[in-house]
């Protein structure tokens, strides 16, 4: 049963399928909002198949081991994360007190692999992209952690499952976290490297940043990793900030979960439709002077509220 859980449902296969649908949804919505037609539903899968059929080329100067390992590490880290996030009930597949920290840690790994993969590609564009990915990590990681910390404080637990259970029983407390929700959404854009924070892969400046030298199967793995990361990030936000209707029949909760994730994907594509790419210095400034204080404000609000409630 455990092996099925890990490999098929809700593990690898389901997650990859959902990630591809998520990517299609993102691209289609983005296209529709820009007055374009957009790709057909199977396009993300077709891209993966096409990339998998291509030859792997590794630059002569690159570190072969690191170059090959990084996509695998990135994908493994994001797929494992889903085991700790409650999807359509208040119980995750695997949960213990403190799994929020583990999830945050696991979600940092892809960015680190982008850095290492780009750095060891030894291409100028990759190296600039890698340096930017790491700079960006330091900017959004703190606001993201703070904004997830605030609901956890109020729920008095470090376990995502317990946080979800706490809020689903006290729905009136959900609106309290609205600032944290917004901060987490914006920080998630940074994590996923989407406009306005797609600075590490700004195509008009540094080609594809980290991924410049990647191709074939390795690029397919990286792209899959980014798609899965989007689903995992959206699920995490849905579990903590949108714990609605968890007591309904199982199939209905499942549909509701899909809708929640799709709503978050819609928000992501909407935000990237209406904005231009920021510069790295503007991004860091924004994260430290606006986003981090806002997330901190949420923390203070929840601390005060906790004192009042008790």
């Amino acid at each position, binding site marked *: 049963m455990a092996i099925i859980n890990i490999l098929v449902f809700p593990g690898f296969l389901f997650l990859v399928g959902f990630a591809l649908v998520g990517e299609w949804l993102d691209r289609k919505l983005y296209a529709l909002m820009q007055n374009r037609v957009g790709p057909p539903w199977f396009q993300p899968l077709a891209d993966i198949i096409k990339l998998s059929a291509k030859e792997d080329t590794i630059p002569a100067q690159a570190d072969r081991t690191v170059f090959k390992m990084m996509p695998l590490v990135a994908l493994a880290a994001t797929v494992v994360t889903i085991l700790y996030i409650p999807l359509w009930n208040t119980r995750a597949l695997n949960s213990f007190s403190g799994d929020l920290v583990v999830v945050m840690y696991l979600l940092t790994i892809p960015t680190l692999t982008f850095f290492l993969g780009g750095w060891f590609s030894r291409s100028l564009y990759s190296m600039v992209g890698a340096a930017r990915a790491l700079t960006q990590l330091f900017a959004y990681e703190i606001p993201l952690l703070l904004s997830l910390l605030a609901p956890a404080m109020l729920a008095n637990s470090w376990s995502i499952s317990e946080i979800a259970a706490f809020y689903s029983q006290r729905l009136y407390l959900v609106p309290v976290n609205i600032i944290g929700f917004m901060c987490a959404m914006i920080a998630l854009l940074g994590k996923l490297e989407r406009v306005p924070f797609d600075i590490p892969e700004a195509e008009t400046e540094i080609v594809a940043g980290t991924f410049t030298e990647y191709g074939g199967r390795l690029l397919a793995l990286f792209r899959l990793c980014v798609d899965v990361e989007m689903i995992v990030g959206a699920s995490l936000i849905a579990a903590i900030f949108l714990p609605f209707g968890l007591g309904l029949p199982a199939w209905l909760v499942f549909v509701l979960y899909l809708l929640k994730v799709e709503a978050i994907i819609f928000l992501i594509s909407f935000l990237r439709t209406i904005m231009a*790419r920021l510069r790295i210095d503007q991004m860091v400034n924004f994260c430290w002077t606006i986003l981090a204080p806002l997330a901190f404000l949420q923390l203070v609000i929840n601390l005060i509220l906790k004192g009042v409630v008790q």
Partner: protein
Amino acid sequence: MSDQDVVKIPLGPQHPALKEPGNFTLSLKGELITEMGIRLGYNHRGIEKACEQRSYLNDLYLLERICGICSHSHSTAYVQAVEEIAGIQVPPRGLYLRTLIAELERVHSHLLWLGVAGHEIGFDTLLMYSWRDREVVMDLLAALTGNRVNYGYNTIGGVRRDVTDEQKADVLKATDILEERTKYYAHLAGQELTLTKRLKDVGRLSKEDVLRLGVTGPTARASGVKRDIRKDDPYAIYSELDFDVVSNEHCDVFGRTLVRVGELLQTYKMIRQMIAQLPDGPIAAKAPRKIPKGQAISRYEAPRGEDFHFVRGNGTDKPERVKVRAPTLVNMQAVAQMMKGGQLADMPITLAAIDPCFSCTDRMIELQDELGNSGQVYSWSQVREIGIRHYRERGIDFSDLSKRLANWRERI
């Protein structure tokens, strides 16, 4: 930081930021640009030389192909110079129609630029929107002239096609749509926060630098230099039209955007005036095949700035010399100045803000040896010998083949 921290990044000749070949070597300290080297000349086509071997009318079509965007600008600038030498009076209706196409071309060029600018700063929605709206004017140009870019509308002495009353109505209708959309973009440019953040204080060029470097077009007008050939040295029918020269004192990419959007609104005003005032009569005067001896210069306000043509005739049906100076040539000098101390992320938009057109600019090639010495002149036979030696060194020898070819010819 020591000199070892300076990273040199080559951008181009092929790169995704621009659709034309140009090589830019950026010296970077972190994200800051300390120096920029520009290398153009990948697209030399020898058009000026080719002009000397073709008749005046053939040259018109050749010069139109200098640029894929401001094709009408080059052909009009050339045709004006030829008409001046030959002393041809173009009928008023011909001049009006020529100017109408010129202004429609400005609309399509500026909308295209707006989209490119959006793409350079990662705002693809602006690209998709403005290029969708650009289709309106492209369709209009195709309906009026028969083609979307290389219109072939001018001829020596006038234009080649007349407009019908239905087409006039179409022009007015399209102008209304475009004006509404442009007003929306003007509103957007001032409102959208990420847009203004990326455009303001980027690529600064002071008024003094504009005057020193001889910068033209919207780039100069955005630095407070009110220069516009249409106002300063009116050609065609611009002296009869009522319009303002749009300029501002921003001195940055934001200012250049505002100038272009403002110019679009002025252009719609001019198009309406031209349609309303369009006189009756012939559209072209008859031009002689042989143009008399003489020389003339012609200046034209292309969408990118001053387009300069010089033509000298020697009494035959072919010009003795045609000289073209596209606006990008002068504006390019300013880019290195704008780039100094800028960020890597601002490089594409700074470059795009002069609306560069490298292919139009490439007029000559200067050969340099390994030491950077130039000025050596090779005769045709010397070039041939160098070529033969070059290939022989690489194991390719045609001498045997050419001997056999000569023998075979003798036998026949």
